[in-house]
């Protein structure tokens, strides 16, 4: 659905040139929720804006729904943008217009008739749960409600793609969850392709199918969220995961220094997470184990468990083989 090929982008900042992106390749499949995570200044905002050409790349290719956007003329690009919705961190609603008028704006831009606009706006507001607020002004709404208006507005022209620019960064945790749930619902029900940028791993974990980690204008790691989240390879990715789990790596290795035996990290995925596997393996191989840390949670809809255990005695090799046979990923940490 979206294909960026070797895109470069730099800006003039006074006499200096600042490079935002240095050769990024990105492929987002139709119907998936794709997350781009990075610290501020990593270039994620620029990357998102290349997809609807709010920023033009210095070089590279930008293709959306099979259309080469860089080859389009002004009216052609405007038409293409009408098929790409976008929501913003600070909502960017018109303060002088009512909720209904805000949602109607993209339809007006697209030249739809008033007779067509009214029922469409009503349906959109019902979808985001704001039917009652149609005649209020944005200033009378809460942050979460404003983002709902933003989402309704972005969906008005029935786009195939929705770009989310830090859509939940200005919201409290509870509101963030409800907005993410709404995005997931829209993705499921409308088959909409969603690209979101964020600096919070938690956002990625909740809604994304795949994730790319951006650092210094380059994608340093990408893949299915569970893979990247549970087995981060790059230092930047590890930092994001640890931040999300509130883990302090240095503190941990200090804590484990006096623990005897080997230390393993076990990762369970799917329904296996809830099986009494560890006890069974211990009985059959005579292994002694102690749990050092652990968490059981979900990545999007899939449950997972990750345990760090210390082991001593018994047949470690047989235990490892048994665990792996049952689909548990075993990583030796020490």
């Amino acid at each position, binding site marked *: 659905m979206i294909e960026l090929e070797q895109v470069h982008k730099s800006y003039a900042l006074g006499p200096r040139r600042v490079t935002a992106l240095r050769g990024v390749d990105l492929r987002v499949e139709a119907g998936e929720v794709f997350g781009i995570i990075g610290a501020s200044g990593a270039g994620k905002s620029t990357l998102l804006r290349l997809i609807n050409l*709010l920023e033009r790349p210095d070089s590279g290719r930008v293709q959306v729904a099979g259309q080469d956007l860089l080859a389009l003329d002004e009216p052609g*690009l405007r038409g293409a943008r009408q098929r790409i919705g976008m929501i913003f961190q*600070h909502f960017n609603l018109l*303060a002088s217009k009512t909720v209904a008028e805000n949602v109607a*704006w993209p339809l007006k*831009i697209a030249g739809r008739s008033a007779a067509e606009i009214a029922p469409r706006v009503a349906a959109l507001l019902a979808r985001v749960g704001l039917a009652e607020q149609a005649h209020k002004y944005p200033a009378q709404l809460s942050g979460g409600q404003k983002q709902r208006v933003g989402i309704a507005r972005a969906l008005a022209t029935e786009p195939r793609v929705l770009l989310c620019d830090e859509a939940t960064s200005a919201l409290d945790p509870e509101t963030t969850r409800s907005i993410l749930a709404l995005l997931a619902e829209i993705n499921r029900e409308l088959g909409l392709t969603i690209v979101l940028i964020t600096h919070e791993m938690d956002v990625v974990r909740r809604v994304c199918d795949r994730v790319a980690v951006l650092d210094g204008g380059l994608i340093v790691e990408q893949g299915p969220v569970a893979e990247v989240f549970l087995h981060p390879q790059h230092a930047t990715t590890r930092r994001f995961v640890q931040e999300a789990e509130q883990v302090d790596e240095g503190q941990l290795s200090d804590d484990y220094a006096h623990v005897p035996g080997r230390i393993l990290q076990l990762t369970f995925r799917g329904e296996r997470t809830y099986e009494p596997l560890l006890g069974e393996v211990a009985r059959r191989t005579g292994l002694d184990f102690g749990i050092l840390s652990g968490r059981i949670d979900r990545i999007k809809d899939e449950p997972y468990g990750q345990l760090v255990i210390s082991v001593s005695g018994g047949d470690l090799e047989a235990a490892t083989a048994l665990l792996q046979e049952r689909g548990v990923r075993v990583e030796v940490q020490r």
Partner: protein
Amino acid sequence: MDALLNVIDWAEIGLASWDTLLMLGGSLLFTVLLGLPLGVALFLFDRGQLLAAPRLYALLSLVVNVLRSLPFVILLIVLIPFTLLVAGTSLGVAGAIPPLVVGATPFFARLVEGALRGVDRGIVEAGLAMGASTRQIVWQALLPEARPAILSAATVTAITLVGYTAMSGVIGGGGLGDLAIRFGYQRFQTEVMVVTVALLLLLVQLLQMLGDWLVRRYTRR
């Protein structure tokens, strides 16, 4: 007191008040009609804006600055040939309006430019992301969003114009200012001076109240 007030020719005052209102209304109308597009152009041509054209911006900006730096009394005189051309006379209400418009338009345009700059950039970005044209962004987003600030700018401009109309008395523009100069100053009729000043004060006060009310009415914050 009665004796003092009897000195005043109320019919003359009424006529002058009417002239002032005509000059104010006429010049405000044309100032807004010309200044609004000029202000929008200044905003759009500036660096980093939708129609960024630095040279054109520099040129417009220079013209605006030149007109704004001329004292209005000088402008009144310099513009006499132009006024004759446009209005057919350089006297009376009709003769006063062209210099008033030329004097106030750059002022108002700058205020409009500032009002548009006050609109959150995110609004423009949202419009672009929806595929809006520059024209659509200006008419459907920027001007409605800036409306309270533009109304406030129009109020300030109207009050400035009241001051200018008084000066146009110098070249026979008529109105309350003219009356104040001819009777109050040149003929030492202090009573006329006091009454005209009071009327001008009242006018300014009413304009400010009307402006404030309009700004409140269109503010949705």
